[in-house]
Every structure is written in structure tokens, then in C-alpha cells.
């Protein structure tokens, strides 16, 4: 199990669970697709750091690193192999 913030770019992972602090925020992230079972791919970070863009459900969505630390994931075994 790895924190989403620790995953290297372009590695596909699947979300196991989220441990976000407030209900309201956790619901907002859920609506954007950050829930159990969804596949996520980290893409690129902002130049000042602190926030990173992820590919999720066909969209590019940016989430702050301190929130990505609360999203726990596992590696995904791809037929094509992991990474792109």
C-alpha cells in the first residue's frame, strides 16, 4: 500500500481507500473520481511544488500533495506492463 503522493509519474495505481479529514472535502474528491477501485496515474507537478496533476477517469485533475498523502493505493498489474 502506498500513498498517492509517493507514486512516481506515469505509474498506474488503483485506489484502495481514502483517509481524508473532512466529510465535505472527501465527498468533493469522491465526485471527481477519487474513490475505492478507481485507477489513477500521476502526471506532472507544479513548478513551486505542493500540488500535482493526475489522470483520473479520463480527466487531468490536480490534487494537493498533503491531500494525496491521505489517498492509499496499490500497484496495478497491466498486460502491457506498468508505466508507459
Amino acid at each position, binding site marked *: 500500500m502506498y500513498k498517492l503522493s509517493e507514486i512516481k509519474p506515469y505509474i498506474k495505481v488503483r485506489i484502495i481507500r481514502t483517509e481524508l479529514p473532512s466529510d465535505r472535502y*472527501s465527498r468533493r474528491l469522491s465526485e*471527481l473520481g477519487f474513490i475505492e477501485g478507481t485507477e489513477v496515474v500521476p502526471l506532472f507537478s507544479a*513548478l*513551486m511544488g505542493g500540488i500535482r496533476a493526475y489522470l483520473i477517469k*479520463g480527466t487531468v485533475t*490536480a490534487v494537493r500533495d498533503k491531500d494525496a498523502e491521505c489517498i492509499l493505493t496499490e500497484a496495478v498489474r497491466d498486460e502491457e506492463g506498468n508505466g*508507459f
Partner: protein
Amino acid sequence: MKKETGFDYEVALAGCPNVGKSTIFNYLTGMNQHTGNWSGKTVEHAYGYHRNDGKVYKIVDLPGTYSLSTGSAEEEIAYSYIKNSTDKYIVIVTDALSVERSLSLAVQILSVTPRAVLCVNMMDEAKKAGMFIDREKLSAQLGIPVVLCSSRSPSTLSELRDTIFSLCRGGINTDPPYSLKGKEIRESLGTEECIKTVDEICRRICAFCIEYKSSRVPDTKLDKILTSKITGIPIMLAMYGILFWITAAAANYPSEWLSSLFLFCKKYISGFLILVHTPSALYSLIIDGVYTTLSWVVAVMLPPMAIFFPLFSIMEDSGYLPRVAFNLDRAFCKACAHPKQSLTMAMGMGCNACGVMGCRIIDTQRERNIAIVTNNFIPCNGRLPALIAISSIFFAVTKSRTANSLITAAVMVGVLVFAAVISLLMSKLLAVTVYKGEPSGFALELPPYRKPDFFKVILRSFIDKVLKVLLRAVCVAAPAGAVIWCLTHFTVSDTRLLDYLVEFLNPFGLILGLDGVILLAFILGFPANETVIPVMLMSYKSSAVMLDYSSYTELGAILTTNGWTAVTALCFMIFCVCHWPCSTACLTVYRETKSIKTTLLAVLLPTAAGIILCLAVNLFHSAF
């Protein structure tokens, strides 16, 4: 069936933000649109009408939402509308590239009402990404008609329109299948389980109906360049620099043309007034007061605004601004400002009233207030010509015209950076004093870059801007000209009213590195910022006869004759950025917050900052 007067069928457009709903709305309603507010809320309500074959269709644009629940004002509105839509029809607009996510809204809507059509928009982009959507399978899975659209292909849009009409007239049967778990979802809307159930259903449907012919990773080459440590910031500054440079350089030509036009018309108006034996005082009021100010505003202030605004709209439409928000997120985090504040600040560059209204996108009241109160630090379109003029006169003093425009652009970028930094510092100040609280959570969507429809955007925003400015010129600048004329022509014990005011304000102005006339101009510029320079000029010159509006030489001569130095110019620019909001912006702040306290804060904070900064600059200068 309950029917309001004026239309036969009511159709609502629902969908996530950024799916191209407004393009479809514009297509269906054309010029026939109305915007207002949903009752009791500060969310924009847009609706329009479409006539076809003897029937009138009312098209309502619901606010963009990711799901049906009662979290934010937008969601409440969408949810309550759809709940009460037994006699209405819904067009669910989704974006092909992110159809998995948008489909979850569709499934939720179908749990409440079956009277819907699914529109999968932006199919051209999906095709480019190697995505194939099986329309028949999708339609069978959802039990409603599905139309695959692309805004570049009018035939798909007319197919959507025809499908909507058929649906309304009862020509199509809709029947969401049991597999969509309608009852279960409807009863648990808004809960975590509901989201999970919906997510499972959507994943199943997408796996069945959608094929990907190539890898799904989006092309991030451009994004990596725009957000990299080395190139990110220079590119940001360069983008704004180019915007300002084009504006400053290109505005000269229409300015010259317009000022010749006004001079030309002046002869005829003048001739006419003399012909009808206008009393000389009234003649002077009209020609020297009203007409002069009006022509100044239109000839000198309008061209930069009319050029900047469309260019800025193109930048907005292209999808670049969320990347700016992404890049600057850390700074906003440290300033305790909501990240979406960068977007509202960008809107403030067009118009501060729009920027304040735009703060609706910020969820929490506390962070919304911070964004609203600090919005005026960002110089709006109305202040842009004044800033360009003063930078050109006092700082772009080389012999080369090209070098001068580049210097002006560079100075303007500097002004913008200054405004942004002050804005963030003030946000931090507010966050630790008046608006204390916890920062809210946040996720920012970075939509794919879209090539904006240049022609349409430029045309629409150009016409919109020109008309708005012309209207304001007539309603605000003309009366302002009349007021100044009265102040310069009415005397009390041999002293002009103007001189009384200027003398009163002068000591205060001088401490700030300005003078009484400048302060008076700012005060009289309260209705509209673009009248500040014209009012200033008319006060400096006893005879308000301006021969050449477009050249800055005459303007520069007037200013230097009246004691302006580079320091005055600097203080003017600082005060221009940091002073009270214009009347429209103040009204908007009150309308959005319904709080006199917040409105007062929005007026006093920038003013106080301006006073302190100008004082500091002036003291610093006197000390050397």
C-alpha cells in the same frame, strides 16, 4: 400538464462544468438569451427560447455540477430543479473524453426522471484520442436516446436539436432499465454508498460501450513545459507581456482614427449649436465639457480596452488559466487564499465587478470574502489605458518606437506582478485577522487545451466591450465632463469651485506624492475608472481644448507643466492600483455579500494600502 405562459415545452441543460454546455445553449437559443439569478441564490440563471414548427421551447441552462446532492448552491439548484421536472425534459451534456465521470451525473439524473437525452459532446477530440463510443449500446444501457456531438460539426448539433424536439412531442419512448438501480440511487443521493454504486454502474457501462484504440495518457508535453521549474514563470510573464504589448502598440491606430473623427464631427456639432442660437454658457458646457470628455474616453480609453479584452478572452478560452492557478497554488496556499482566487483575480483584469461576481466559484464564505475584498487590487480594463499612458510618457523615453512599446509592456507586467503580490499579502492579512479559519480542501481540473474559435470569441467580446464602453461613456463620462465644466466655470468670490476643491485636497495629495487635482480626479472617477485621466486633464487646463487626443506628447506636456515628475508618475500608478473600487464594483460587492461591513472593507483596504505605499515612496524619495 402545468404550463406557464409563453412557451410549449421546457428543456433544461444539465452537465458537469467544462463539457461545452454553453456552446450547446448558445446554439439552441442564439441571441435569444436572458440571464439573471436563481431566486434566493447568487447563482446565474440563464434561459432562452427557440421556435420551431409553431412550438416554442424554453431552454434553461442549469449550473454545472458533478453530482446531484445538496453540497453547494449550484448542486441544490440543479437537484431541486430536476426533482420537480415532471413536465420538463433534460438534456444531459457530457464530455466524450471524460465520459466515465460525466456519466455518473447522468445515472443520478435518470434515477429521478426518465425524460432525458444524453449528448456526448467533443466527439472530435475523442476521435483524435483514439476513443470509440458505441452509440446504440450506450443508448440501450441507459434507456434514453444518445446523440454524439461535436461543436465543430453543425450536423450533429442539429441532430441533437431534432432529437430534443421529438422527445418533447412524445415521439421517443424513454425507459431506463432496472440495471441502473434507479430507486436505490434516488433514495441515497448524496451519500458515499450512492457514489460507490453509481461509480460501479458507470464503470460497467463504459467497459461495455467504449473502446480505446490507443494509450489513454493525454499529451502532457505542453503542460510540462508550461509548469516546469525553468520555463513555467517566464512563459507566464511573457504571455501577459505579449498581451500588453499588442494592446499598447495596436491601440494607437484606432485612437488616431477616432480622434480625427471626433474633431471632424465637432465642427458640425459646433456649427449646429451656433445655428440654433445656443447661449454661450450652454455651448461651452456641451462642447468643452461633455463633448471633450466623451471624445477623450472613446478615442483614448476605448481602443486599449477593446483590444485587450478579446485577446484576454482567447487566453481564457484556450484553457491556459487553470495552469496558472496550478503553478501558483503554493503561493496562494501560503497566503491562505483559496486557489480559485487566481481565477477570480484573472477575471478582475477584465472587470472588477465581474471578478467579484466570479468569486461565486469559491465554496466557503470566508475564502470568498477574502477574494472579493482583495479583487480590486487587480487593475481592471478601465484602469489599463491610464497605466499604459503614464508608463509610456514617463518611462518609455527612448528614441525607438519598438523599444518604447516593449518598455511599456514590461512596465505593465511589473504593475501586474505588483498588484498580484499586494493582493496576496492583503489576503494573508485578512486571513489572520478578520477572516480567520481553516483552509478548505481543493481539487483543480485542468481541462484539455482547446483551440478557441478565434473569430467568434474576438467578435463576441469585441462587440460586447465596445458597446459596454460606449454606453458607459455616454452615461458616465458625459455627465462627468459636465460636472468638471461646472466646477471650472462657476465661481464663488472670484475663485472657481474647482480651485476650492483642489486647494482642499492639495496638502493631502502632496504627502502622497500626488496633488489635489489627481486626488480629485480619482474621487470623481468613482463612477468609472476610465474618466480619471480626462477629468485630470480638464482640471489642469483652464481652457479645455484638446487638439490631439492620440498622441501622448500633448498629454505629457500638460502633466510636466503641472509639476509631474517620474515620482509623481510612480505614485499615480501605485494609487491607481490601490484605491477604492468603482461604483459598479462596490454595488456588486454589496449584492454578492449583502454585508455593509464587507463592502466597507472592500473600499477601505485598497485605499489604506494605496495611502501607505504612496506615503512610503514619497518619504523615501524626499530622504534622498
